[in-house]
């Protein structure tokens, strides 16, 4: 029976391309006797999309926007049948079967719908999705957090890839920070309230999408509904006890509904601020003179606020066209805690990142009776991301919690915006040289600085205009052809100046700036074929990019091309869907590597290097074997085995004999092997569960960049050999990752069975437990200039967290809503997320602290007189009005060293709680 169902799916449905905003509806229409009904018309919504059944009663409607739809089946002589809530998921086929009866018949109307994405053999992509509604039921706040629940995800690294090697697809339009994705993020956050769903695709995604070698995050936003509805929510930790009050406030407002002329609107605003935006579960300082010993140990100058807004208009044009206009803007402003400025925090740096996306999507739908329906999607998007980091002219005033609304003005910001490298040769106005702080509890001139900031100003702006045309042509029930392409024009501008309180000179590097306008283009073609119980997906993609203009390095750039074939075959064996796939994926390098290093370098050596505008594509070739099965009617099981080979990863290679005169190149290779398993039980009978496990090994093979490891070998002939390459773990080589998600609802039946739970009727609970083995890290000597062992040859301890969300529905006056408690790291486990490279632990040992103190004392052994701002009475042991000599001064230096060396950001967040209430209207 099951095999029959699957065979039917093979015939009736072909999965649309993974990683897009649309899905498909397919099924069979029969009469009450079970006979297939040809020429029946099945339409979606108001009839603008639909299809006719063939002689076997099968139909298929392509390119249906993800979300809930009304589907209606009609045929002359039969009573029309409608189904109100058919869920279409992006990249998947929803099965909707109809049984029509004649008007005079008393036979009941039968409708079957299911989104059998698990067993759909024509969906070769590895997709792990989470719906917008589901996000609200889990202890997650952002799309990134939701996607990170997927197997194989380590934060924003997927299947061993580097951060930034993923692509972000919003309603079918690619959006990527091509400038510094590996270090800077996208800069655009989509409010979860406007989402229909978000998913992570780690393999087998369509040839339609490039610019990703580790994964694809697909986000689908919702269209406005047929009636107005909305939601308002407020979250805070204000009512909580002191150590739990991190100064959090979050407001969410969303709504959607019809406007005039069939135009529909959907919009959402999400604003969040926290006084300690990056709280850590570091041990509290032990010295009572340290001001952070006071509960709740908030980090000073670490506040952050972000504002995210998105709006969408859906405009029907005639019967077969629709225009969707989308706009989103994110603003993130952060004060950054700098340990050196702990006591002069007004001089610590701050950062502002803004992201803006405006896009338009014109869709042409096929006629309902088209023999070979053609759907066309033309998308145009403009993306702007701007980053600035430096010292503020003035500190932002907090008006409500950590909300300031301050736009943040930076010292030297005007020079940076003008990219005025001539004016920046001089010391920039407003910058003052830093001096050792006098405001510390310890007084001594060591470690902590004040008077002036670090003197840096960094700015970059990435702009992109992207045009994308996608066509889907139905070649009958057994074949579909997808083809199209994109043209992208970008502009990159960067500026950085360091030690801006000094003029450029011997010890002060000149300001760096770049302004260039790369272009890229791509074309693809993909076929989905079905024959008997086999499905084939065959795709090819051609990518090209060209920096085009001078990147400031004086080096020439060539246009780069890459060809990416993709292939998948799937079938059904013994009730399970088996898929084998092969794909080559490519992405252009971050443009930050094309310009002289003006960014924090997260690659291995952390040295200043020259940019190389002649970099080529980073590529990955992935082989995968997947099995999807349903061990029981309510249990889904997926397993994936994959091997991924990465080539041409950007790394630095020596330009000459000096390690410091090096240049970026496509020098490194990587290999990732892994197994993923996902066991899922959707909520039924009051509970549901989802368990994902990933086992992977990710290693890099590198040329001997920087001669990092001089491991001399003697070969069999007695000759000395310097190895040309080595292999070591990649940065995101997380060996084991286990995530367990449990959800429960106290339903009426539960209350009936356990009456004592009556007060909890309606309460929803979601728990996420995670265990992840440690990431690798590199050890160095105490000076930090020599590696100990191979890179990444040591490992951090595993991390464990338990998150919990408890939600209780309520009705307040005419409003419906709920109150909820969201707890992250419920057990308050102190997870170590990084360590010092020199000690292999989060902090320094007593001997190292003593050495720091003694070194600082040796540099400043002078006495501190009573009238000095540095005088501390408790250290004047003999009460002579002077702190002099090692007996009196060294304890101060020791206390200062302990304070300065406190491990802070080596630890993950502590237990974080937030209370929320929301109202639907």
């Amino acid at each position, binding site marked *: 029976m099951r095999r029959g169902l699957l065979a039917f799916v093979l015939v009736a449905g072909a999965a649309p391309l993974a990683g897009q905003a649309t899905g498909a509806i397919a099924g069979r229409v029969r009469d009450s006797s079970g006979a297939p009904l040809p020429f029946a018309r099945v339409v979606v919504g108001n009839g603008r999309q639909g299809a006719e059944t063939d002689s076997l009663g099968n139909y298929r409607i392509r390119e249906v926007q993800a979300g809930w739809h009304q589907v209606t089946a009609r045929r002359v002589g039969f009573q029309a049948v409608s189904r109100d809530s058919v869920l279409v998921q992006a990249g998947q086929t929803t099965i909707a079967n109809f049984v029509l009866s004649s008007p005079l018949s008393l036979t009941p109307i039968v409708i079957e719908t299911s989104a059998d994405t698990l067993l759909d053999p024509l969906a070769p992509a590895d997709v792990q999705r989470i719906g917008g509604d589901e996000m609200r039921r889990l202890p997650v706040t952002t799309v990134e957090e939701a996607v990170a629940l997927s197997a194989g995800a380590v934060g924003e690294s997927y299947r061993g890839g580097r951060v930034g090697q993923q692509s972000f697809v919003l309603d079918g339009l690619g959006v990527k920070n091509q400038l510094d994705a590996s270090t800077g993020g996208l800069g655009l956050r989509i409010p979860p309230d406007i989402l229909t769903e978000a998913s992570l695709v780690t393999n087998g995604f369509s040839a339609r999408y490039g610019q990703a070698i580790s994964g694809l995050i697909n986000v689908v936003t919702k269209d406005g509904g047929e009636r107005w509805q909305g939601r308002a929510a407020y979250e805070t930790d204000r009512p909580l006890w002191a150590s739990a009050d991190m100064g959090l406030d979050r407001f969410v407002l969303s709504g959607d509904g019809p406007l005039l002329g069939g135009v529909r609107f959907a919009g959402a605003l999400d604003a969040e601020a926290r006084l300690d935006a990056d709280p850590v579960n570091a041990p509290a300082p032990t010295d009572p003179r340290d001001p952070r010993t*006071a509960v709740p140990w908030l980090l000073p*100058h670490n*506040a952050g606020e972000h504002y995210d807004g998105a709006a969408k208009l859906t405009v029907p044009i005639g019967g077969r066209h629709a225009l969707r206009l989308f706009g989103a803007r994110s603003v993130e402003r952060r004060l950054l805690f700098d340990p050196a400025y702990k006591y002069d925090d007004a001089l610590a740096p701050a950062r502002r990142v803004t992201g803006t996306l405006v896009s338009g999507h014109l869709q042409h739908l096929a006629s309902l009776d088209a023999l070979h329906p053609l759907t066309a999607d033309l998308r145009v998007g403009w993306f702007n991301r701007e980053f600035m980091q430096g010292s503020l002219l003035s500190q932002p005033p907090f008006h409500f919690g950590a909300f300031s609304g301050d736009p943040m003005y930076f010292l030297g910001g005007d020079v940076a915006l003008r990219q005025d490298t001539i004016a920046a040769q001089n010391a920039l106005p407003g910058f003052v040289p830093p001096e050792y702080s006098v405001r510390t509890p310890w007084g001594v*001139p060591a470690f902590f600085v004040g008077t002036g900031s670090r003197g840096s100003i960094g700015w970059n702006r990435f702009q992109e205009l992207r045009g994308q045309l996608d066509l889907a042509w139905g070649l009958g029930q057994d074949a579909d052809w997808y083809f199209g392409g994109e043209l992208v024009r970008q502009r990159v501008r960067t500026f950085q100046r360091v030690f801006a309180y000094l003029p450029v000179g011997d010890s002060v590097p000149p300001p760096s700036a770049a302004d260039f306008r790369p272009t890229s283009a791509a074309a693809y073609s993909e076929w989905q074929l079905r024959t008997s119980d086999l499905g084939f997906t065959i795709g090819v993609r051609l990518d090209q990019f060209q920096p085009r203009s001078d990147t400031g390095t004086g080096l020439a750039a060539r246009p780069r091309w890459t060809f990416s074939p993709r292939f998948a075959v799937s079938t059904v064996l013994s009730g399970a869907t088996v898929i084998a796939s092969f794909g080559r994926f490519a992405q252009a390098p971050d443009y930050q590597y094309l310009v002289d290093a003006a960014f924090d370098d997260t690659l291995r050596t952390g040295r200043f290097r020259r940019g190389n505008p002649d970099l080529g594509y980073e590529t990955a070739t992935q082989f995968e074997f997947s099995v999807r099965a349903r061990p029981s009617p309510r249990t889904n099981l997926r397993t994936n085995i994959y091997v991924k080979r990465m080539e041409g990863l950007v790394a630095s290679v020596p330009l000459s004999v000096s390690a410091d005169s090096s240049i970026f190149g496509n020098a490194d290779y990587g290999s990732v092997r892994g197994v993923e398993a996902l066991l899922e039980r959707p909520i039924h009978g009051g509970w549901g569960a989802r368990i994902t496990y990933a086992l992977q090994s990710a290693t890099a093979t590198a040329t001997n960049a920087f001669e990092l490891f001089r491991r001399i070998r003697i070969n069999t002939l007695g000759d000395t050999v310097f190895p040309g390459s080595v292999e070591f773990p990649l940065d995101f080589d997380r060996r084991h990752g286990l995530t367990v998600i449990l959800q429960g609802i106290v339903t009426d039946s539960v209350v009936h069975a356990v009456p004592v739970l009556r007060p909890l009727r309606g309460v929803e609970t979601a728990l996420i437990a995670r265990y992840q083995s440690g990431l690798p890290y590199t050890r160095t000597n105490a000076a930090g200039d020599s590696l100990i062992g191979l890179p990444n040859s040591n490992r951090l301890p595993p991390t464990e967290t338990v998150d919990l969300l408890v939600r209780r529905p309520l009705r307040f006056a005419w409003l419906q809503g709920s109150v909820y408690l969201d707890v992250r790291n419920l057990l308050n486990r102190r997870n170590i997320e990084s360590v010092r490279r020199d000690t292999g632990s989060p902090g320094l040992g007593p001997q190292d602290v003593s050495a720091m103190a003694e070194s600082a004392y040796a540099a400043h052994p002078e006495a501190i007189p009573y009238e000095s701002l540095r005088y501390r009475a408790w250290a004047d042991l003999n009460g002579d009005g002077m702190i002099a000599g090692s007996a009196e001064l060294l304890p101060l230096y020791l206390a200062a060293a302990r304070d300065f060396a406190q491990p802070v950001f080596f630890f993950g967040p502590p237990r974080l709680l937030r209370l929320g209430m929301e109202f639907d209207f």
Partner: protein
Amino acid sequence: MKVARIALPVLLAVIACDHPTPPEPGNYTPGGPFSTAVPRQLTFSPGPDLTPTWLPDGSGILYQFERLDQPDGDRCLGILPAEGGTLRAEICNNTLAGADSTDAYGDAAVSSLGRIFFTRASAAWRLHNLAPAVADIVVANLATPWIVRSIRSLPYSVAPGGPTHFAVAQPRWLGDSAVVYVAQNVFYIRGVGYDTLRVGIELARMDLRVSPGSVTRIPGTDSASSVALGAGDTIYYTVAGDSRVFRRTLGSGDTATVWDFGAAGIARDVQIRGAKLYAVVGGVVSYTHDSTLGPVQRDGGGSIHAVDLALATDTPIPLSGFYRHIALSPDGRRIAAEGYAVGVASPGPDIWLLDVP
């Protein structure tokens, strides 16, 4: 549901609560003076603390000190609270560009309108130069002392045919646009250590409204060693090697001897408030005619004498140690002075505060 109905108003109510704020650094310095003893030691720096003067409102004491925490050994100006305690402000050359030179700020005075007059001298310390490479006289606002107006470079010659003034000392504001001061010669002597010897040439007046400042010599004040302002345009002054205190009316040029300490010794560092006159007298002071340098007065401090001009009485203030460069507070009740301990190998003088009879 009852729980929810209760929870909601509670949640709404607590929204108005304030968040805790991140910790701020405290004030870790002592709140007041080191002690209340009389006389009271105000500074304890191992380096020399020199030439105290009072702020016009009597709220603080301006003096010069040495930055021992910097290898270049800058001399800076500091402002102490009137009762003593932690420095309220520092005026230093803290720029990194100044790190390779010894920058000395000194000879300062603050006007009643908050303008500060001081001298700047700079020498490349790594070259071990004795004499500064550049020096000038500047005026600034006390609130923004880093924004200065250079009045006149040092040394300067008083034309025509006049002497060359290498340094200025004891500047006293005449209103807010001129100062009177002791114009000095400076000798840099390379001996066992380094020594700088200042010798008074005469008193001079500088008009600060023009640039360079217009200098007028005050006749009859040859070898002046100190100066103080009296009422109107009257000045009091002493001369090197002399036990007398003179009074001169600037307008008329009339000069008279107002007091003679006689056998008590050489008088210097005169201060006057009404009929009360104070001066440093005797002590570790010598006056010689050096064959190379000419007349030289070396001063290691002396006793402080209080003279009541109305009663014609001279009362030495009983103190241990010697003092120099006394500064009478605007209310006439206290004196700030450089103090030199007797019999103690002090690395440098400190600032002391005395009550006056």
